[in-house]
């Protein structure tokens, strides 16, 4: 057998447990060991990347879901860290009436991504020195990201992470969660009143002055400046800002 054919046959055995492929590889206990290694590594990876989902569902239900995911999603990345990227969407289809399950998965995944995202020194509040506020653009730390949830999965996640009794699922409290890293520690919270607008406008390159003007369209000028200042002050305190200028 040519090398490429052998390798495709091996893949068929690992992914599909194809008996013809097993026979072509010689069969015997060795082929079973590779099959077991393959599935064990992927199941273990999902368990590691989705610890809070596993705690919420319980071992049996989680393993059943993980096994179905492994069947449906052969890994494609060179790193196991990337395995399970679509597990949240998969769980959403598996548990269509339990929004908190997919939400918990989204939080687990986001925390993992933030944990290894690019480093940046956060701007300390006392180091803020801006000459031209009109043109000053707020740049968030590179770890910052947002996800939408439909439930109180954030409260459930925190309780599970602390190994405390989680609250009952409430599937009608949607939110946008902000994730970023304070030093080396991932953190997240629900986005507050003007967080998302100011983030979006800053990402578009708008300076602080134009952002105040945009807020003034709904808040009035005085309240807009106050709101924008409050948002920036909170972000600085929370180590969410890399630079202003």
């Amino acid at each position, binding site marked *: *057998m*040519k*090398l*490429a054919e*052998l*390798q*495709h046959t*091996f*893949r068929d055995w*690992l*992914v599909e447990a194809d008996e013809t492929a097993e026979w072509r*590889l*010689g069969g*015997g*206990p*060795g*082929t079973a*060991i*590779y099959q077991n*290694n*393959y599935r064990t*590594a*992927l199941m273990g*990876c999902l368990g590691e990347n989705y610890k809070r989902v596993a705690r919420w569902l319980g071992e049996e239900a989680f393993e059943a879901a993980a096994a179905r995911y492994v069947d449906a999603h*052969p*890994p*494609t*990345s*060179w*790193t*196991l*860290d990337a*395995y399970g990227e679509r597990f949240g969407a998969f769980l959403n289809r598996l548990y269509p009436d339990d929004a908190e399950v997919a939400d918990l998965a989204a939080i687990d995944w986001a925390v993992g991504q*933030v*944990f*290894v*995202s*690019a*480093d940046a020194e956060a701007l300390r509040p006392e180091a803020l020195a801006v000459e031209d506020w009109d043109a000053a653009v707020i740049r968030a730390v*590179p770890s910052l990201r947002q996800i939408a949830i439909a439930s109180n999965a954030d409260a459930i996640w925190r309780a599970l992470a602390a190994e405390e009794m989680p609250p009952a699922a409430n599937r009608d409290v949607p939110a946008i969660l902000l994730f970023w*890293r304070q030093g*080396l520690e991932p953190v997240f919270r629900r986005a507050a009143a003007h967080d998302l607008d100011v983030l979006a406008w800053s990402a578009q390159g708008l300076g602080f002055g134009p952002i105040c003007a945009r807020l003034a369209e709904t808040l009035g000028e005085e309240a807009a400046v106050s709101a924008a200042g409050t948002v920036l002050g909170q972000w600085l305190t929370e180590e969410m800002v890399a630079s202003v200028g």
Partner: protein
Amino acid sequence: MTATSPDRLTGFGLGMRREHYRAYIEGTAPVDFIEVISENFMIDGGRPLDTLTKARANYPLALHGVSMSIGSSDGLRGDYLARLKTLVDRIEPTVVSDHLCWTGIDGFNSHDLLPLPYTEEALDVVCANIARAQDTLGRAMLFENPSSYIAFPGAMTEWEFLAEMARRSGCGLLLDVNNIYVSAMNHGFDAEAYLAGVPFGLVGQIHLAGHVQGEHLLIDTHDQPVPAAVWALYRSAITRAGAVATMIERDDNIPELAVLSAELDLARTISAEASAARIAA
């Protein structure tokens, strides 16, 4: 571009595992070098890279990969090589290594070290892939003999394949003594004959580890102390090799650092005894 010869690690080391990070960051672990799994640190930033950077300040480092897949018939992944190059440039390891195996094909990655047939065709593929990797990194690499549970018909033995691979590609060898033992038991070849065929002048590092007896075959689990049979084979290998950097790989069921350190002392003793015996001879 011709890859330069690999730098040499010396002494006795351990795989740096999470349970012992503090000792490596503080520089109190009694080892001459450390080894980490490359892919765990091929990331943008955060605590893992911060830990590795601090440990690297205290110890020479070996980057040991598990996903290069030098036996893949469809070649190496450019995104993988680019990430590895970034890490190598950032952390400046003494040694960069991977395995004689394949892990993926056509975008599929098994995340396991899968066996190759030891054929001329496979040798051509492996050498072409090593050339690309070494050109990208601008340095020679070490490649490790795998443990295996299937053996395919081939034109040469594993040790003949390794020797020819190193001769053609300019890579060095990472000799895993436990893997030789496991494969010898599983496939019924003579481990001493294997050692007799290894070009020891090209061996830049030696791995030691433990295994378990499965229902039918030995399983390379890295979750047990190095067993007596592997120590005996190490004595034979280090007698042939001379002073070669040696380390213990313990990936699971990880004991206290003092326990691993005591185990590493046995490697030091065996190496010293082998060196004395060579001098006496």
